[in-house]
């Protein structure tokens, strides 16, 4: 049984968590969506929702592969959407491994070698062996505004909430590999699905939300799963065990001292 390198796992988790947190944090203030709102405005609002928020959450993550399945636990501190500290608590083998993101820069720490390592940009954008995530999942929102054109292709009203389906097509020369992305989210900003299409417009991977409910005082999906649509046995699922928003977090938590657990 082979596991991805622990730093890889951390990064992948980080991406997932960031993406999930971003999506989760977005739900804070429901948009009273007017029907003439443009797709760009909707996306911009989603992004703006998460600015300046802090959170503390405990999560578990299951990575599924044809040959093996692995579950680990970790907790996440976030400050806005830019900064985060993730620390593993289980399994014992990985406990203490931590990842810190401040702005665009990332470090990882492994208690075994007692060193923190700054990840080069090129590594941050790699697709890790055994991972269902990419850097784009993490930087999704910002990229969405800068590099895509958005069109609302569908909107359905149900129980007072509008479910939007937006298709986002990258602009020419955008640093985006996808042919398009299809984002389905509700007007209370719960992201339901995000599907990535290749340049033949075939779906490649998909992030899907399950069990949308109130957690920590906000509506968000308790479980989110990123699946490889070309191989049903490859998926990664992250589940919120608990989450608190607007917690007091000392800035000290986003330093390399904190990364090392000092």
């Amino acid at each position, binding site marked *: 049984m082979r596991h991805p390198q622990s730093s890889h796992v951390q990064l992948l988790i980080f991406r997932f968590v960031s993406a999930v947190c971003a999506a989760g944090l977005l739900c804070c203030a429901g948009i009273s969506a007017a029907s003439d709102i443009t797709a760009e405005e909707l996306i911009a609002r989603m992004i703006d929702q998460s600015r300046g928020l802090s959170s503390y959450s405990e999560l578990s993550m299951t990575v599924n592969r044809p040959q093996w399945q692995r579950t680990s636990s970790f907790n996440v501190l976030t400050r806005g959407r830019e900064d985060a500290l993730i620390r593993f608590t289980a399994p014992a083998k990985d406990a203490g491994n931590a990842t810190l993101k401040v702005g665009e820069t990332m470090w990882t720490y492994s208690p075994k070698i007692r060193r923190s390592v700054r990840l080069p940009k090129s590594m941050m954008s790699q697709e890790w062996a055994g991972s269902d995530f990419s850097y784009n999942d993490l930087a999704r929102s910002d990229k969405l505004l800068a590099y895509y054109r958005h069109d609302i292709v569908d909107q359905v009203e149900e129980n007072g909430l509008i479910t939007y389906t937006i298709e986002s097509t990258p602009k020419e020369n955008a640093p985006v*590999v996808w042919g398009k992305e299809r984002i389905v989210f509700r007007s209370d900003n719960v992201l339901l699905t995000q599907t990535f299409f290749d340049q033949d417009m075939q779906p490649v991977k998909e992030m899907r939300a399950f069990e949308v409910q109130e957690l920590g005082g906000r509506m968000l999906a308790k479980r989110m799963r990123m699946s490889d649509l070309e191989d049903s046995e490859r998926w990664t699922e992250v589940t919120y065990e608990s989450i608190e928003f607007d917690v007091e977090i000392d800035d000290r938590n986003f330093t390399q001292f904190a990364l090392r657990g000092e």
Partner: protein
Amino acid sequence: MRLVFQLALRNIWRQRRRNGLVLFAIVVSVGGVFVMNSLARGMEQDFLRFSIENFRGHIKILAPNQLDEPGLRYSIPQTTNWAALDRPDIETWTPRLRSPAVIMSERETRGVEIVGIDPTRESHSFIHDLVVEGEGILDPNDQHLLIGRDLAEELKTGLGRRLVVLMNGPDDTAIETGFRILGIFDSETTRYEEAYVLTGLSSLQTISGVDGFTGVSVYLKDLAYVDEVQSSLASQLPDLDVATWAQLDPFTSEMHRFIGFTVYILIVVFLGTLVFGLINALVTAVLVRIKEFGMLRVVGMKSRLVVSQVVIECVIIMLLALMIGLGVGLLFVWWIGDGIDLTAFAAGVEAFGMGARMVPHLVVDDFVILGVASVILGLIASYFPARRVIKASILQSLRDG
């Protein structure tokens, strides 16, 4: 002396079968050495060619620190004065901008090197004989990508698709750009196809914000000028690193030297075996003719002439065999002139720094050495058996023979 020569010729003809066999053995050896030698030389040429056409050149001028940290951080300014390169022994020179990069498609990510080229100046690198499907890089301002067939297959992408290239800019910030693939190339070796993605030089300069080059490859009219030109350029361009291909690629340089040496070992081994075979054959040949030589001496032939008769016989056979052998070898080399197809072992031979084709290469010097050495060995090999004849007394020869 003429008489001796005639006698020698007649003796050779008299012992047709035995001498024919000796001749045949030498022909096979010489032909074998010829073919092996030309293949080894071909390999040597291959090593050299791959090393030089691989964006290296005979001499490479690099921005300082570029060797320690390849990438965009250290570059040669666009405004550099290249007057030093205006010399008769320099064939051409080419500036390039290269950076390690990560390239991403929808499904895969690979580490490659992105190279900004000025296609009009790439006449001496592997670029000029690429087979391109779609559109090549035809202008330094071209903004699209030209990638290798192997890489395209690994990335599961194709013509007209967009790829994302990520590299570290000169100030260490990440530069992420979308490129469209307008061309896919097939090259002689898959190494190039996997390692390089090409775009226009000016266009890459604009994207990366580097107003210059990472290196300049200099191609000489002859390999022999390398050290001289290198030291001259190094003194004229004190702010830049000037290195020869051998300094930049010590492995290939050593392989190159090693093959050059192997060629001579090969010749020595072949000739060594040949000479012992020859001595063996000649000793037998001489021993069965002891009575005959005794008779010649009885009728007044001087010992010296007896010896030279044997030696001349041997040298005639040797020369004849040498000519036939070289002829056969030449025919064989001509027959495999397009090279031996090693495609089945392509991965292996490429890892070794060779192409998938083993093309023979003839070096005249080697054959002059081979020819001269054979004749000298023939002389030595026949002299000692012949001496045995005159060592015995005439009476003994007549009685024992």
